[in-house]
C-alpha cells in the first residue's frame, strides 16, 4: 500500500524559509510512522533529519508532531491515522527548529535540571548499610511520575508555554519534581516545593489537560500537578486554606 507523507523541511545551511516535501512510501498498516521516515531517509532522501534510538517508545528520542498532535513516531502506527489522506509530519511546536524534524532540546533539559536543589558535593565516607523501607502504598504515589521518558510531547502541547512566551517550566519538569516531592524517602521536599513556586513555575499551570491527552506513556500529568499544588498549599501556605 502506498501512503503519502507531507514532511516539514528546513535546512539551516541553505534555506531561508521552511517548506514541505511530499513523499510516497510503500507501507503496511502495522508499520510505525518511524519506519516510514526511515524508508524516506534510506531510499529517497538521505538528508531528512530526525532523531531516533530505541524505536519502541521507551527512550523518548523521536517525538514529532503528527497531523498536528505531538507523538512518538515509533509508537504510532499507520493504521492509527486516516492513511488515505496525507500524513503531516512536523517538528514539535514551541521548540526551536534546527534541521527538519530536529529541535533544540537543551532548553527542555534545562528545565529538568532546574527542579533540583543545589546540593553541595557529598562524599560518602561510609557506604550505606541497608535499604530504606517504603510501603507499597507510599511507593505507589510516584508510580505515574516514574513512567516519564522526557520526550517533550507534553511541553509541545501545553497552551501555557505559548501564553507565557516559553518561560513556563512546563509539565515534564513539574512531573519530575513530583517524583521527588512525593517520594517518602526524600529529605528535601520543602526546598523542592519552593523551587516549584518560582516565577513561571507550577502556578502557571491552568489545567488545560493537553499534557495528559498527548502523553505517550499515558501519565495523568495534570492530576499529578494538581496533587503537587495541593501539597504545596498545605505544607508551605497552611493559613491560606
Amino acid at each position, binding site marked *: 500500500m502506498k501512503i503519502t507523507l507531507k514532511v516539514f523541511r528546513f535546512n539551516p545551511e541553505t534555506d531561508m524559509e521552511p517548506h514541505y516535501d511530499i513523499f510516497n512510501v510503500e507501507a503496511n498498516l502495522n508499520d510505525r510512522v518511524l519506519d516510514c521516515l526511515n524508508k524516506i531517509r534510506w531510499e529517497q532522501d*538521505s538528508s531528512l533529519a530526525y532523531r531516533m534510538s*530505541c524505536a519502541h517508545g521507551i527512550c523518548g528520542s523521536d517525538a514529532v508532531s503528527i497531523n498536528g498532535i505531538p507523538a512518538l513516531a515509533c509508537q504510532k502506527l499507520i493504521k492509527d491515522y486516516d492513511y488515505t489522506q496525507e500524513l503531516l509530519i512536523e517538528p514539535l511546536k514551541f521548540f526551536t527548529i*534546527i*534541521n527538519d524534524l530536529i529541535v533544540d532540546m537543551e532548553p527542555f533539559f534545562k528545565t529538568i535540571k532546574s527542579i533540583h536543589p543545589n546540593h553541595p558535593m557529598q562524599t560518602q565516607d561510609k557506604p550505606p548499610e541497608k535499604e530504606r523501607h517504603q510501603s*507499597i502504598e507510599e511507593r505507589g504515589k510516584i508510580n505515574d511520575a516514574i513512567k516519564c521518558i522526557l520526550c517533550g510531547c507534553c511541553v509541545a502541547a501545553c497552551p501555557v508555554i505559548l501564553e507565557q512566551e516559553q518561560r513556563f517550566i512546563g509539565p515534564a519538569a513539574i512531573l519530575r519534581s513530583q517524583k521527588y516531592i512525593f517520594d517518602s524517602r526524600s529529605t528535601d521536599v520543602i526546598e523542592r516545593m519552593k523551587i516549584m513556586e518560582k516565577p513561571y513555575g507550577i502556578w502557571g499551570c491552568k489545567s488545560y489537560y493537553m499534557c495528559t491527552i498527548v502523553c505517550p506513556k499515558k501519565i495523568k500529568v495534570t492530576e499529578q500537578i494538581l496533587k503537587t499544588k495541593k501539597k504545596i498549599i498545605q505544607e508551605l501556605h497552611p493559613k491560606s486554606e
Partner: protein
Amino acid sequence: MIHEYDVVVVGGGIAGLYTALTAAEHCRVAVVSKVHVTRSHSVAAQGGIAACLGNEEEDHWEWHMYDTIKGSDYLADQDAVEILAKEAPQAIIALENMGVPFTRNMQGKIEQRRFGGHTRNYGEAPVKRACYVSDRTGRAIMDTLYDRCQTIGVDFFNEVFILKLLFSGEHCCGVAGYDIASCKPEVFHAKAVVLATGGSGKIFKTTSNGFASTADGFAIAMDSLIPIEDMEFIQFHPTGIYGLGILISEAARAEGGVLRNGSGERFMERYAPTLKDLAPRDIISRAILNEIKEGRGVESKDFVHLDLTQIGKERLMEKLPEISSFVETYLGIDPSEKLIPVAPTCHYMMGGIPTDHKGRVLSGKTETAVPGLFAVGECACVSVHGANRLGCNSLIDLVVFGSRTGISVVKHAEEKELLSLPPHAENIVINKVNSLLSSNGNERSPVLRAAMQCVMTEKCSVFRNGDELEQTLDQICQLEKRMRNIGLENKGKVFNYELQEALELENMLKTARAIVFSALQRKESRGSHYRNDFPERNDQEEPRHSLVNLTPKALKVTYKPVFITRFTPEKRRY
C-alpha cells in the same frame, strides 16, 4: 574544540553514568554520548537486577556465583563472578539510597522475583533474586543516575560521536570525535578514558537493541590494536516480538508466562525439566528454533507463542505494564486474552574489550593494562558472563563494575599527570569526516547494512557451522571492500545522519568480521555459540577465552585460559 578533564567517559548508559558519578565525587568528569544520554539503550532494560538480598527467601552469594558460572557454560572468570555476586547486594543498597524507586513487598523491602537460570541451592529450583521497578528497571535506574549527575556536576556532551582513541606513546590520553549538530571536531584531553559504549545488536536484522547499538567501542578499540575477547558469544533473547524483535522480558515468564509451540504444548518441559521456561536464554532460544525446525512452530511458521493469559489482567498491569502496552501497540493484542508470537532476537554481547576487575583495559595475552584506558558495561569483557549471560546479571554488572571502574579512574587521575595530545588531534577527525562528505562512489550504506544484517542473521546467529561461517567471513570482507566505494548524497554538516550511519556501518562491519572470525575458530559448542559441526563442548582441554586482533593485514586469534576457582566444569543440565 579541545576540552580538558581528569576523566572522559564515552557513552552515557548506566555503566557510563555510574562510573562518572563515582569519579565525580573526586575529580572533573565529562560524559560524551552520541545520543542525548537519557536516550541510551540502558533505558530499555526491563525485568530486573540480580542480587542475593534474600528479601523474599533464603539466598546466598555462592548460589548466585554458581548460577552465573553454570549459566556462562564455565567460560566466565570465576574470580570476577565472585566479585559480582558478593558485591551485588551492596550495589542495590547504593542504588536504593540514591533514590531508585524499586518495587516493594509487603514488608516495605525491595521486592524480588524469579529470573532465568537463578536458582537456590546450586540448581534445585528457581529463586527470587531479581530486584526490579515493574518492567522499567533500566529506565528508573537511568533517571535516578541522570538526576544525580546533574546535582553533583558531571558535564555532558550530548550528540558527539567519538571516532578515535588518542595516545601519548603507550598511554591513552583522550578521544576525538565530532559534534553531530555541526560536524565540528571535538577533542577530549584527559588523564583517563572510559569506554562505556554498549553493544552491537544492529549487526543483525532482528534485535532488541536500539539504533545506537552499532559496535562503536569494539571498533575504536580494535583500531588502536587492542584485542577483543570472546566475540563469538552473542546472546539471542528467546522472546522478541515476532518480526520486530522488541523485547518481552523474561520477567513475563517469571510471573507465570509459558512458551507454547504450534500444538499448544509447553515444550520447555522437554528441554529443561527442572527450570522449564526459566532456563537460561541460550537453551530456550535453541529450543524454540528446534521446535520451528521440526515443524512445531505456530501455523508451521518461524515463531512460537508466549502465553501470559494465566497471569491475569490486574497482575499484568501491575508487574508488566510496559510490555503489555508494547504488545497492545504493535500487535493489537491484549496479552491477558491472547497469545503473543515470539522468536529469538539479538540481545547482548557477552564478549568485548578485555578488562581486569578495576575496569582497566588489558592489551592481550600478557594481561598488562593499557595505561589510561578503561572499559565498562556491555562493551567490556571482565568476564562475568562467559558464553551466556543470565538475565538481570547485566544491570548488576554495570553497577558493580561501574563503581569499581569509577574508583580506579580516580586513583589513576590522582597519580598521573595529563600527558600531551598527539599533534593535530582534531585533524584526524576532520580528515575522516571530510573524506566521507566528499565521497562520490556508487555504494550506499543502507544497502550494505541490510546485506550485512541479512548474512549475519542467516549464518552467524543461534546455529552456526564452519562452511557457512567461511562464506560469511568472505561476504563481510566483500562488504568492507564495497564500503570503500561509498558515496554520500547529503553533504550537509548539521545532523547529517547519512554521514553518521556510514561511520557506524564501518564500525559494525569491522566488528562483524571479528565475530565471524572468532566463531569460525572456536570448534566446539558452548553457551550461546553452537556449532552444528561441533555440537559438543570441548572438555578435553581447559576452557579458554578467545582474543581477536586486528593486525594491519588480517585478523588473528589467540587464547587465554579461563580463571577457575570454585566450580569445575560439569555437564550443564537444567
